[in-house]
């Protein structure tokens, strides 16, 4: 009698417990979505594993020693020359030139857009930077080889080789400029308005406010932009492949041709490359170095941005 009662109560008064209802389709979909999310981690793992595996084959080669890799200055894995420096120095030179061009220009553009420009002027000027950012890098390569190099040859005379690091670096700077300016502008406009008003109240001019108050407050964000810019410059391939030269060359002279790490990978892998050769493995060693360098730079930059956001929120 009592049992019957509870069943009756169950039927009449208790709402259906939908939580316990099995929904197989729902959980299948959820696990598919989860797999898509986790796939990105697989990609990272695959990059590290594949590059690491082949790079290990390279470093395990008895001919490749630590002393040779970091101690000599010629890179020709095919004939037993394993000095990484020529590729590293040219990467450094082109990236340095690129940052030398893009940091001041990008920062100045960002200051103008965020502190000086009227909303109307900003909406007219920003699309131009966006177009610059959307142009494929191979087109910049064409520009570097057929416009910038002849221009530099006119300015600096015959010392400028047909392929040279300066032209590639300058054009790379133009390519990175929109990135630097948009990231810096974000940082500058995140500075609270109260700081600016305070400076004006003390009688500062707009320029003094921008440089002595807003810029220091946004410095971490600008630092993040700088680091991302370096990472882009180090990983950029097509401009240097077209304009910087084809052949490792240990030099710091920007008028000379020298192949960067990325340019070297592009040239060697573009030819007929047999698997399991030392050349093939060496490319993966270079790519692994590139990946690690850019990863560290990106992580630092992201860390800076995260800290910076917390400060003003």
């Amino acid at each position, binding site marked *: 009698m009592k049992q019957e009662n509870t069943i009756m109560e169950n039927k009449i008064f208790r709402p259906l417990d939908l939580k316990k209802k099995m929904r197989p389709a729902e959980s299948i979909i959820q696990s598919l979505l989860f797999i*898509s*999310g986790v796939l*990105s981690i697989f990609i990272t793992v695959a990059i590290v594993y594949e590059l690491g595996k082949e790079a290990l084959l390279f470093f395990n080669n008895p001919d490749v020693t630590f002393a040779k890799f970091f101690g000599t200055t010629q890179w020709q894995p095919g004939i037993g020359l394993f000095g990484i420096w020529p590729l590293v120095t040219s990467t450094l030179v082109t990236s340095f030139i690129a940052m030398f061009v893009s940091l001041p220009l990008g920062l100045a553009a960002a200051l103008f857009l965020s502190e000086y420009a009227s909303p109307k002027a900003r909406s007219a000027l920003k699309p131009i930077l966006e177009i610059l950012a959307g*142009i494929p890098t191979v*087109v910049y390569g*064409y520009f570097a*080889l057929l416009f910038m190099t002849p221009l530099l040859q006119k300015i600096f005379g015959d010392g400028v080789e047909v392929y040279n690091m300066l032209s590639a670096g300058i054009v790379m700077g133009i390519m990175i400029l929109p990135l630097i300016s948009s990231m810096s502008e974000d940082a500058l406009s995140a500075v609270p308005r109260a700081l600016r008003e305070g400076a004006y109240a003390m009688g500062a001019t707009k320029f003094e406010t921008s440089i002595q108050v807003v810029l220091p407050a946004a410095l971490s964000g600008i630092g993040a932009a700088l680091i991302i810019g370096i990472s882009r410059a180090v990983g950029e391939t097509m401009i240097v*492949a*077209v304009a910087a030269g084809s052949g490792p060359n240990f030099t710091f002279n920007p008028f000379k041709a020298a192949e960067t790490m990325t340019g070297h990978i592009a040239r060697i892998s573009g030819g007929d490359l047999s698997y399991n050769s030392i050349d093939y493995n060496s490319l993966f060693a270079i*790519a692994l170095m590139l990946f690690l360098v850019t990863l560290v730079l990106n992580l630092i930059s992201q860390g800076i941005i995260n800290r910076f956001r917390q400060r003003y929120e």
Partner: protein
Amino acid sequence: MNPNRDHYPKGEALHRSLSRRYRSASIWQTLFFSALVIAILSLAALLYNVVDGAFGYVAFEYKNDPSEFTSKALDDLNKQELLDILTTNLSSGAFKKLDNEKAMEKRSKSDLYTLVLERLIQIDTKQTWSMTDSIFRSSEIKAEVAKKYPDAKLEFRSWLTPVFLTTPMSSKAEFAGVRTAILGSLWMVGIAILFALPIGTGAAIYLQEYASKNFLNRVIQTNINNLAGVPSIVYGMLGLAIFVRALEPFTSGSMFGVTDSNGRTILSAGLTMGTLVLPLIIINAQEAIKAVPDSLRQAAFGVGATRWQTVWHHVLPNALPGILTGSILAVSRAIGETAPLIVVGASTFISLDPEGPFSKFTALPIQIYQWTTRAQSEFHSIAASAIIVLLILLLSLNATAVLLRNRVQRKY
């Protein structure tokens, strides 16, 4: 701190210092603005440089005189006569090869005309001039050609023509076109989007709608942001190791009975490109999903919808324009990328249209790269024409994206 702090200028000195400060302020403002001017000038120089290369005078000679093959003027010949000339003058091996590519009888008249020019008469380009030179130094150029190449003809030529778009590759710049390259690019981008769009949207839905704030999901999010910053050539190496080598039976099509191919196919390139744009698609889709107001979700839950029903019927339809905008931007990134394709093994000389995912391929940026790095100036001219084609393609894609974005903004 500052020792001058207590000694503020007074009177006349104050005015002098004020006007000095205003002067330096306005000088710096001009300097800041000039950075933007430099950016605009660079863009203008780049576009001008490209257009300048795509048009201009070209001096060329006929290696073999047309009168050796026919008594009529070349332009007056009809299709049958052109065919006869080709049959009698081409070696039988060369003729058979052409016939195998496409039956000679089925080719159009202009096709045959080009073949006669290309194979028999053989145009020999001596020199090309840029558009600016051709316009402003026209008489000098004519004098120079008359002196240097007495037999040569000089004509003002637009390298970018409708024929350029519809002819396949050729080893001679005068007859080369971008047909195979455009088709290759479209195939590759299609595969990339088919691969990356569903997975990317799925990942974005998971991260925005399902994921709780635990360690794993934070790692996924950081990882996606980092993947977006990995150099494209590293993706190329990944594609080479995984899609070209490890998955060769699948990507070469030998699993499906295709025999004449290695792993360097459109499919490998498309999957590599899909991996490259995946983080971009995820980040953009996340932004789009974030922009859907929470009230929509609450309302759906309120009438008893499950989480997936809410996502499928309310969140996704509202986020769709944003997701599409993001994928169009991803497409335009993929169309312009060159480095991974070089690594994955784009062939540079392909004169046949790609037939399917297991064909060898070339792509528009690959052709631009190849032609730019050639020494002869006529190849630079067709590189410039190909760049114009690429830029127009990208411009129309981006315009579509902007239009879509504006429609979304109007809605909320």
